[in-house]
């Protein structure tokens, strides 16, 4: 099992390093969001909004960009994971998947290798987004991520776990769809139908306070909301949060575990000899 897993992971990582342009293109979208959307959507400049009121709406974040930068971590987890599932579809198209299925490699190794290798990009992108957002604060004319609370070791570990769990969750979702679906058209239609509503029913991009109550209720249980809540609470303080970050982290872990169970059932079925 370990040898099969190791061989398949090696293949995935080799392919990733052989296509640096795909990494660059994948990173371009979050950078543009940080540079354009994050800078342009300056809620603080709106008339009538006090600094305290704004900070309340932004759950403790000192400005919209800081609030948004944490949300971008959830955003890149969704967008970067799409490619991981698409790669499964292309492997089917080019016969590579048929070769793998023709070997006794266990389905856990086939799935697990793609999960681990496929999560490298979203996790890497998430950290790059945070680093870039912090660097922006030191560039004149740009808003940047302003971390107002002191992030200790526990906080840093919680942030790391949140980033890893949200990446695992969406990569698992994308891979499951990739294993179940055979055509790129159907795959992209399916991920768009799932990912965009997931993103827009979270508080990743717009402030919690501006949402209607019904959307706030949905957003409370959204995995992206849970992940960014761990980040925001650690970076901006816990005064406006109902629960400590560990609770949100536990909720996120439950989502990732649930998604993992669904994936195990569906992918094992998809990898069985065809009927």
């Amino acid at each position, binding site marked *: 099992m370990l040898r099969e897993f190791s*061989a398949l992971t090696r293949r995935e990582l080799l392919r990733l390093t052989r296509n640096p342009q795909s990494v660059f293109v994948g990173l371009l979208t979050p950078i543009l969001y940080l540079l354009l959307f994050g800078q342009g959507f300056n809620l603080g400049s709106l008339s009538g909004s006090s600094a305290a009121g704004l900070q309340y709406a932004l759950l403790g974040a000192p400005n919209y960009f800081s609030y948004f930068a944490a949300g971008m971590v959830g955003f890149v987890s969704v967008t970067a994971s799409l490619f991981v599932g698409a790669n499964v579809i292309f492997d089917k198209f080019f016969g590579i998947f048929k070769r793998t299925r023709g070997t006794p490699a266990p389905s856990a190794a086939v799935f697990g290798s793609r999960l681990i290798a496929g999560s490298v990009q979203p996790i890497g992108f998430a950290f790059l987004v945070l680093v870039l957002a912090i660097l922006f604060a030191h560039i004149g004319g740009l808003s940047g991520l302003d971390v107002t609370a002191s992030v200790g070791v526990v906080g840093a570990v919680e942030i790391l776990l949140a980033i890893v769990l949200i990446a695992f969750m969406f990569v698992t979702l994308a891979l499951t769809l990739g294993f179940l679906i055979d055509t790129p058209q159907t795959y992209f239609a399916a991920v768009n139908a799932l990912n965009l509503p997931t993103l827009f029913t979270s508080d990743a991009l717009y402030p919690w306070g501006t949402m209607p109550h019904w959307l706030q209720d949905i957003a409370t249980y959204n995995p992206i909301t849970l992940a960014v809540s761990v980040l925001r609470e650690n970076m901006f303080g816990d005064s406006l949060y109902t629960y400590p970050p560990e609770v949100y982290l536990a909720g996120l872990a439950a989502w990732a575990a649930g998604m993992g169970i669904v994936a195990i059932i569906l992918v094992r079925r998809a990898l*069985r000899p065809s*009927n």
Partner: protein
Amino acid sequence: MTDPIVAEGLVKTYGGKVQAVKGVSFEVHTGEAYGFIGPNGAGKTTTVSMLSAGLRPTSGRAVIDGVEVAANPEEVKRRIGVVFQESTADGDLTGRENLEIAAGLYGISRREGKERASALLERMQIGDASERMAKTYSGGMRRRLELGVGLIHRPKILFLDEPTLGLDPQGRAGFWQFIQQLRKEEGLTVFVTTHYLDEADQYCDRIAIIDHGTIVATGTPTELKDKLGGDVVTLKTSTAQDVSETLRQVPGVLTVQRQDSSYRLKCSSGEVVVPLAVEACSKAGSLISTVSVKRPSLDEVFLEFTGREFREDEGPSATDKAILGARLQSMRGGRR
């Protein structure tokens, strides 16, 4: 000792109504090269898929190296090598990486995988290109790489599904040279599907002709050709005298057809009949000016058993279209 490949009444039905394979049964003996020939859509690939644990049969059973395929598909995959019809090598990896990763998929250690990859690259004559991306390989090199991938775990049974499809005659000959060498050195049992009849004739010990999902004839190439009545001898005499009756009396001659001074004889063995026919004609006062002996080809065998000519460039068959239709139907949830 059980035969390495046993198929008993294998049936594959798609969508509940399209029968791609209609109950095929056969055994392949140890060390044998068994050819499965038939036109596109005859059921060749479906049969290979069922034998190699890629497709579940609707009914019937397959036993590979004593292991029931349906009960233990993973064990079967461990014991067989498969070279698929289409290219399955990863074009973005080098030839060496493709082989090393394939070794890992069979649970072979990294070190052992490296050694086996090096040996196979050398053997498959792609050593010089081993560090190049597989997407830069020629068709023949890619096929040899596919063969290397199929052999990385040293199986004793090898399934080849249209292995030389798309290769030029030189590439086909080279590929078969490797297979013959492997059979000789390692005692491989080979199951090959092909629609190149000359390949089956030349390289297979036994052949099954499949058409519309049913095996219509089986035997050695010689046996199959003998079923047509043996050789065809064509004689031309130097006189206008009719020697049909004389030739009919020659032992071994089955039928005689005359056209002017030419005679077409169907006989069990041309080698035996020719000297006797020459002698008989000479005694009858008619000298033979030309003689030719033709062994029946597998094309003629196919024609005999299926009632139609074998064409290598056929498009999708009616069965192919029906299977595709059934799959699309099932993808749409069976709605009309």
